[in-house]
């Protein structure tokens, strides 16, 4: 009894789909003739990213077959080099002749550094598929402790440079004072001696 109900419902659904104004003979033909190509491009500054940040990719879909608006299903997967999936995303996109769009993928913060691949699989018409992939690298995130070490090192270098600079400046300054004092005493002594001689004579 249940089987009969399912069969009737199935037939009914096929009838509805064929008689539907959306599913015309033309649409069916375009499905049959369609041939898609997919490509992925990752901009240069996103080829090396830190875990926890977003990967940006440009997706291009081209309908090489017949004209007409067609909905295609897209499956995205981000995999590490051991083929472990770390991220999945799905969507449906309507394409007439060509579609270009940008998608972002939030890379999990706990992703270990290494090579990763973004796979995109497109399913259209009666199960036809097209796929593309592009690799990128997850690099080690500069953690706070590292940053603190870096700032501390920079502060030490700057302080040392300042001490050396001030030391050199003060040495020059001290040398000048010494020279001034020496000249003062030379002139004073010579003048005193000269005055003494003048008084005697």
């Amino acid at each position, binding site marked *: 009894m249940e089987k009969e109900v399912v069969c009737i419902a199935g037939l009914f659904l096929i009838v509805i789909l064929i008689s539907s104004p959306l599913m015309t003979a033309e649409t069916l033909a375009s499905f049959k003739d369609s041939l898609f190509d997919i490509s992925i491009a990752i901009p240069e500054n996103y080829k090396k990213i830190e875990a926890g940040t977003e990967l940006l990719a440009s997706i291009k879909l081209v309908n090489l077959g017949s004209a007409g608006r067609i909905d295609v299903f897209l499956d995205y997967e981000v995999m590490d080099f051991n083929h472990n999936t770390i991220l999945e995303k799905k969507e449906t996109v309507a394409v007439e002749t060509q579609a270009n769009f940008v998608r972002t993928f939030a890379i999990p913060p706990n992703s270990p550094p290494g090579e990763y691949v973004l796979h995109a699989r497109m399913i259209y018409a009666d199960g036809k598929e097209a796929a593309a992939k592009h690799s990128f690298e997850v690099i080690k995130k500069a953690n706070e402790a590292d940053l603190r070490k870096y700032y501390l090192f920079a502060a030490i270098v700057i302080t040392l440079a300042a001490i050396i600079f001030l030391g050199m400046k003060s040495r020059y300054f001290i040398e000048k004072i010494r*020279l001034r004092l020496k*000249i*003062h005493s030379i*002139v004073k002594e*010579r003048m005193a*001696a*000269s005055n003494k001689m003048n008084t005697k004579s």
Partner: protein
Amino acid sequence: MTSLLIITSVESLQKKINEIVKSFGNTIGIYVSLNKNHKSVEALLKKEKINTRNIFFIDCITSEKERDDVIIVQPSQLDKLAYAIKSFINEVKGKKFLVIDALSTFLIYNDENKVAAFIKQTIEYASQNNVEVVAFSPKTKGEELLNKIFNFFDKVRKE
């Protein structure tokens, strides 16, 4: 007060220096020696019966300190030399003169433009403080430098 540059042959350089220093009589002077050390200069001046008690020496030839009343400055230390000259000008009261005995010697140790800047600065300071400046240079040396510094002096004498 005037500044004078005397360009003369190497042979007659000392003779000219003696004449000029002698002409200042008992006026107090600052002598920057770049040609001979202060001992030799003093001996030569004394020989000409010039009273060296009134002359303060800045020796740019001697490397080791021999006397307490002589300032020793390396010819490469133009800043220090300028400061020493300024200090003497400030310390010595009354009328005074400044003699620099062989400007071209500076060129052995310094860049031409630095020497020109030093001379300009020294002449300006001396003139502001009523100090008469006489600088000497041997004829054959430092033509380029001489061309650069001609204008800083009130008078130039080629002998």
